[in-house]
């Protein structure tokens, strides 16, 4: 399957994601965590902490950051970079909101689906 880089896929309603929380999108290549901040922005990140693989979707969300539940590394939702003294980056993916629905960029999703 092919699609232009600006194709988006609807993965659910914004209201289905807890505010200052996250829901997970499952793909064949692992999970993507979709975060909703207190200001109702959305961000999509690989649901895997570069430290020891912890599920970032289960962390406490504050401002535009999330703290990994396993060992408290803090990541910027915008850039995926670890904050403070920790070094590491989480892949981030384009996400947006349209009419109360959360949309993710199809390009990377389809790449994940295609890889078996």
């Amino acid at each position, binding site marked *: 399957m092919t699609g232009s880089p600006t194709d988006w896929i609807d*993965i659910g309603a914004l209201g289905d*994601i807890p505010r200052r929380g996250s829901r997970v*999108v499952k*793909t064949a290549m692992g*999970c993507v965590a979709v975060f909703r901040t207190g200001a109702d922005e959305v961000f999509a990140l690989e649901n895997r902490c570069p430290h020891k693989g912890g*599920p970032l979707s*289960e*962390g406490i*969300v504050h*401002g535009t950051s999330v703290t990994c539940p396993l060992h408290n590394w803090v990541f910027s939702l915008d850039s995926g970079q670890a904050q403070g003294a920790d070094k590491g980056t989480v892949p981030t993916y384009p996400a947006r909101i349209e009419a109360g629905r959360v949309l993710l960029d199809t390009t990377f999703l389809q790449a994940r689906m295609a890889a078996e």
Partner: protein
Amino acid sequence: MTQKLVVIGAGMASGRALEQLLDAAPDAYEVTLINAEPRGNYNRIMLSPVLSGEKTYDEIVTHDDAWYAERGVTCRFGEAVSALDRDAKTVTLAGGDTLSYDKLLFGTGSNPFMIPLPGHDLEGVIAYRDLEDTERMMALGPDNRCVVIGGGLLGLEAAAGMAARGVDVTVIHIMGHLMERQLDEAAGYLLRKALIDKGITVKCSANSKEILGENGHVKALLLDDGTELPCDLLVMAVGIRPNVQLAKDAGLAVGKGIHVDDQMITSDPDVLAVGECVEHNGAIFGLVAPLYDQAKVVAKTLLGEDATFVQKSLSTKLKVTGCDLFSAGDFADGEGREDIVFRDPARGVYKRLVLENDRVVGAVFYGDTADSNWFFGLIQSGEDISEMRDTLIFGPAYQGGAALDPMAAVAALPLDAEICGCNGVSKGDIVAAINGGATDLGAVRALTKASSSCGTCTGLVEQVLGVTLGDDFVLPAAASICGCTDLTHEDVRRMIKSRELKSMAAVWQELGWKTTCGCHVCRPALNFYLLADWPLDYLDDPQSRFINERRHANIQKDGTYSVVPRMWGGMTTPDELRAIADAAEKYNVPTVHVTGGQRIDLLGVRGEDLPAIWRDLNAAGMVSGHAYAKGLRTVKTCVGKDHCRFGTQDSTGLGIQLEKKLWGSWTPHKVKLGVSGCPRNCAEATCKDIGVICVDSGFQIGVAGAAGMDVKETERLADVTTEAEAIDMITAFMQLYRENAKYLDRPYKWVAKVGLDWVKEQVFDPETRAGLIARFELSQTIYQKDPWAEEAAKNADVYQPIADFKLEAAE
């Protein structure tokens, strides 16, 4: 040869004198300390923070019973001196006892001046001098009105303290602006504005005419212009007069105060005097710094060493939270005097320097007092400032165009700059203490006394520590909750209660949080404090809980979870075991482990399967074991007299009752109980947070044990005779812990901080205990519920992915 020293008056000056004397020569004198107030030495200056609720009385006591006992000081508190016979060298107490002395020290302090207005002796007209006065003011609340006569330092602190408690306060001041001794009119105006913002009514140029009463109690103050100000309490804070009657009657030389020479000796060579009761070279004293200097001289004189009391220039700081005010020197207008004024009314900043012959002779700062010590140094040194005249008002950071650095001002201070005015401690004294090994505020305070009196120089002392130690010193950001605030856990807990903050947004807003929504450190703490203090008003926020509490299961290193159903008191049945085994097989649970808390742990459950496994366990009658919670974990038991030949009571029965009562409650950290059927203690109750040992005569309740990283035996809280009493005592202890401890302090850490004696006081008092139990039970009406059942019923979809493309790809 040990001489007898009798001290009349246990105020701050005599306290410091005794400290200096007994530290230098513990055996030179046998000391008897007499005090008309029924207590020992305390820091009277800190009555204002006690009034406003920022401190407790216990925190301001400077010398406790142990201190006197260790030094062999005989204490006669609550007794007044009725007569002094200087020929016989005896002192007679009001009760009739007579004490003889070799040396006598007067520390009788001052009496507050009570204006002889008609009605001044009505009930409800008080001064502001001692703890009793403070407690009268603290008894008022939002339904009361109070009038304070006197807009000076003390009157304003009284007004601000009561306003902080919600009282409707009016300040009456005879002069045209407030604090006219320290402030000029412009600074007085800014101060007035700040007080009005605090809800205090201010009337200057107001003359009191009469105090009106009803049934012997004050009801209003009548002013000259006919205005009537109704009030429930009237406080006079219009000045103090040295308390000299006893000295006068005994024939000592007395003017405005008891005359003393440079060695603090009165007209009688065996009688000394110190503090507010003295007059030295025509001057009397109302601020603490010179009293401490006098105290040093008294100690030396009593030991036969040379010492001279010298009066120095003074500065004052107003101890009203939110009103930053500093004044020093002489700032009256005059011939040959010039002013430099910096004014920024929108920011509430006013700075005025008074110069004479190119020297700074006076300074008044309101709103920005950061550089006050540097300017005070210029006043004391009297150095020529003509070179820096054009940038002088901007402070030390701007002399020579240096870049603005908050620590630069402190680094630039010379070693003889005074840091702590109350105790006369210079920067050099502090640096010497630091170089001698003092590496934190507590150590500096203990060694030098800096910041141990009024406390306003604390920030400055910390900056000196920072400048001297460099990277080795961490300014106490460590003491605050996290980077979102400078406040400590204790501050925030207290204000959540006193300011009735019932939501996180209220806390962030009212307490000035630096971030928009906290962080992973403070949000869980705040969530707990709010639900503990306001169970009916605050809505628990799952997004502010750690993963384990949000998912009601313990997350493991691979992202799977452990599920632990509750086994009340460690008892189970074949049906329960079958249900657990069935669930383990159905959900392919890789590991089944028996825990130390006497129950079974299913490890490796996938997050998506949690609601389903819960439903199955619920169907078998089991509920969440809260193995993941900062809450009640387990009540470990050994079988008692139901089976065991040594059992004295039904330990398992009691354990189950306790677990049924306490489960579901959230606590500052996990709580583990144990109940053993006899002193052989097979349930290991003596290392639990709360542990019960059953004995023939009843139940021994211990608390504050530990068996994790720290190992500690429980301390005995109480012995009771019935199960009902045991359950009550333990419930009250739980609630006391919930309401007062710092988040993440286990009970043993909390009890170490507050003291077991205080805990006992609370839970032994029938009324307090009943209140604690009632509040616990109220909280349980909200929070005692099985989260598994609730989640499985209402929230199951949140455990599933929002979208699953693995399935779609397969199509």
